[in-house]
């Protein structure tokens, strides 16, 4: 009978305002979490941090790095194989991290060494909460000339 008044009543209802603000905050939260969990940000982080270790390393050093977060993101982004996540190109002194399908992030290291035995070991370590974590291990050796066998 009095439709205009009904619409007016609905718009004046505080519940409508509350629903709108809830939708707004859920949308914002989704947006922030989507960025935070996106492969690109974490690829950048892991590539640079691992390169820092390589740059600081000396021949003979061995590293075991907790990369559990990276493996979780790669899994959620359907990366085909865990062996694809971390790749080293000793010829070009470059480390690449792939946490999303079809894209990878690379960074170069200036230390004149080779990175060998790069292995991702599942549930090979424990974190401070005593939970199993995935570990990336690698060794630093002298720069090998082309055709030379890795010792």
């Amino acid at each position, binding site marked *: 009978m009095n439709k205009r008044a009904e619409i007016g009543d609905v718009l004046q209802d505080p519940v409508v305002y509350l629903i709108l603000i809830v939708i707004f905050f859920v949308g914002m939260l989704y947006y922030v979490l989507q960025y935070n969990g996106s492969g690109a940000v974490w690829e950048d982080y892991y590539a640079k941090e691992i390169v820092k270790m390589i740059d600081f390393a000396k021949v003979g050093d061995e590293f075991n790095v907790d990369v559990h977060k990276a493996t979780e993101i790669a899994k959620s982004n359907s990366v085909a194989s865990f062996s694809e996540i971390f790749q080293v190109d000793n010829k070009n002194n470059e480390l690449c991290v792939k946490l999303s399908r079809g*894209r990878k992030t690379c960074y170069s290291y200036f230390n004149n060494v080779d990175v060998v035995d790069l292995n991702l070991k599942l549930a090979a370590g424990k974190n401070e909460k005593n939970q199993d974590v995935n570990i990336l291990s690698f060794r630093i050796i002298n720069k090998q000339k082309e055709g030379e066998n890795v010792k």
Partner: protein
Amino acid sequence: MLNNRRGDLGDITMIFVYLFFIVIIGVGIFAGIYLFFIQGYEFREAESDVLNYKVSHCILDNNIDSKFIGDFYNKCALEKGVVEKYNLIRVCKNSDDCVNERDEKAVLIGQGSKFQACRFEGGRKNDAFPRCVIKNFVKDGQSYEVITGSTQNSRRSLG
């Protein structure tokens, strides 16, 4: 209610004001987050610091002569190709101002150019400028100044 139409209209239009504020705040948050993540993880200063540490220790551990200078990259275990592409290195001996040093004898190692950008404070907020680290030390009574910088950014590609 029908006798007070103007009052009703005022109350109803408040929803548009409300939506307007939500949109303004939303756009601000979207833009802030986008700009924060698009910048990436700043690593150039840390990289310059590690390079400076390596070069400084290399100078301290070696006899500084023409042979060392000629074989600098091998002696300091640095990959020449990467350094030439992404890094700056300048080592001065007994120099008052290594950044602007014109005396070639005082500059032992020089890789890259535009070292003035390292001193430019305004450049710290500009991504196009290198991030540099400058350190001084004394060895055998001679003062050394080591400037290192990085212009490297991570590269995202298909793969």
